[in-house]
């Protein structure tokens, strides 16, 4: 399958819409967002902006297929001219693309209890076949670069502070090389120094030609890394 236009884009979203039908509320429809179109090239960061409730997080969740798209296309270029429409692919295919191509740093850390920070961060690498020892070594390096104290490596991140959890979430999202990385407020609960480290990490990912779509709660931080901006209006 070929991308319809703008072949240099890694991600091309066309007329994407999402509405929710509440069957147990008499079939009431809630509009998430409508008519969202943008494209992102490799090494670019597109920032989604707009007021609270405009549907920024919903756009990310729809690209990741946590939300089922109501209408529109989401073309991802998987390299060598292979483009797939994430809005139309099967669940099994989406599972494969998530493992190999798409990362998602969600707003809140959702992990299993009882698993150490090191294992949580190393898991995406192990999933794609990296030797466990190598994956753990890489996870430790990444955690050190994000200033997570070594004494916390063997502890479940669910016991960490909000800022520490956020850094674990980011480390887990970026450890395995992906073509597309979605980030929902990656610096929201971080102090200036930690946020600076995350922004440096995002710059490094851009140099690695990773395509990034992100939401920032802080405009000053956004302008430091964003190449383009897509503004969503309330109930557009």
């Amino acid at each position, binding site marked *: 399958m070929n991308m319809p236009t703008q072949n240099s884009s890694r991600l091309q979203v066309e007329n994407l819409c999402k509405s929710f039908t509440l*069957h*147990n509320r008499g079939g009431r429809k809630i509009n998430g967002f409508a008519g969202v179109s943008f494209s992102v090239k490799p090494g670019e960061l597109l920032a989604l902006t707009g007021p609270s409730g405009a549907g920024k997080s919903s756009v990310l969740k729809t690209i990741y297929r946590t939300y*089922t798209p109501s209408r529109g296309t989401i073309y991802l270029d998987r390299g060598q001219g292979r483009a797939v429409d994430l809005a139309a692919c099967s669940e099994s295919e989406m599972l494969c693309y998530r493992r190999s191509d798409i990362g998602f740093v969600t707003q809140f850390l959702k992990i299993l209890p009882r698993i150490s920070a090191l294992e949580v961060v190393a898991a995406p690498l192990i999933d794609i076949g990296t030797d466990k020892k190598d994956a753990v070594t890489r996870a430790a390096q990444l955690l050190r670069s994000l200033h997570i104290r070594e004494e916390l490596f063997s502890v479940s991140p669910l016991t960490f502070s909000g800022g520490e959890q956020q850094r674990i979430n980011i480390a887990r999202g970026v450890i395995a090389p992906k073509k597309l990385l979605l980030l929902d407020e990656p610096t929201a609960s971080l102090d200036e120094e930690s946020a600076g480290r995350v922004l440096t990490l995002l710059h490094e990912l851009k140099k690695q030609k990773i395509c990034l779509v992100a939401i920032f709660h802080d405009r000053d931080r956004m302008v430091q890394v964003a190449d383009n901006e897509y503004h969503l209006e309330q109930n557009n």
Partner: protein
Amino acid sequence: MLLDIQYLSKIYGESCGHCLEQTGDEHGRAICPGCQSVVAVNRVNLRVEKDEVLGIVGESGSGKSTLLQLLYRDIKASSGRVFFQDMLDSDGLPVDILKLNLLETTVMRNKLMSMIYQNPRQGLNFLFSAGGNIAEKIIGAGERHFETIRSRALHFIDKIELPISRIDDYPETFSGGQQQRIQIAKALSSSPKLLLLDEPTTGLDVSVQAKILDMIRMLQQEMSFSMVVVSHDLGVIRHLTDITVVMRNGSIVEYGLTDQILEDPQHGYTQLLVSSIL
């Protein structure tokens, strides 16, 4: 594709011939109005890919456990076809596993597919020791060398974190959670391609539940087999599965990525189910 289920149905009772069309989710019933037969599973189509973990959820009586028992050939299907990737005839063509004879079914269970039951008494032979139960499965898979069988049994006892010294103890001397772990060791000792789990943690206290779930997840990542997990507990489904199927009245009402099913359920029944999580 590892498993391909096509129009699989199970009817209890003398069918009038129209049971499947008159029951199912669109009719809101599993009992045929014509002949009162119970349609436990109604024309289910489903595929499971290699290394995929599929969850089946639904209320009691929705047909989820029956579906699993049909796949493991514990009960006879009324109609449908099921193909398993590595089950080929002498000409290399796919074999419908619903048509296997007793001997062929035993070979399939010993080499390709294992089942973990809610009640360990169904999955374990209580007249054999823990090690004996595991050895039975290894022998069934074709191993005949005593030392290899013993060392493999010890390996799995160690994997499920039971003391090696207890390998010769009988199942009834273990707690419920330990018996469940022995079932896991037995099921995995033949290195199956597909593991079927029927309510694997129901009835166990929460700390034991967590340990069993962690163990299953860890072993699945380590040994990379596919799983079909039946549970009424959405926490178990969230914990273990990649893709989830929702059943009601013997039919599949929704199929989706597990996070999609939990965060953006499409069907009214799934919305009700998800909104009922405490």
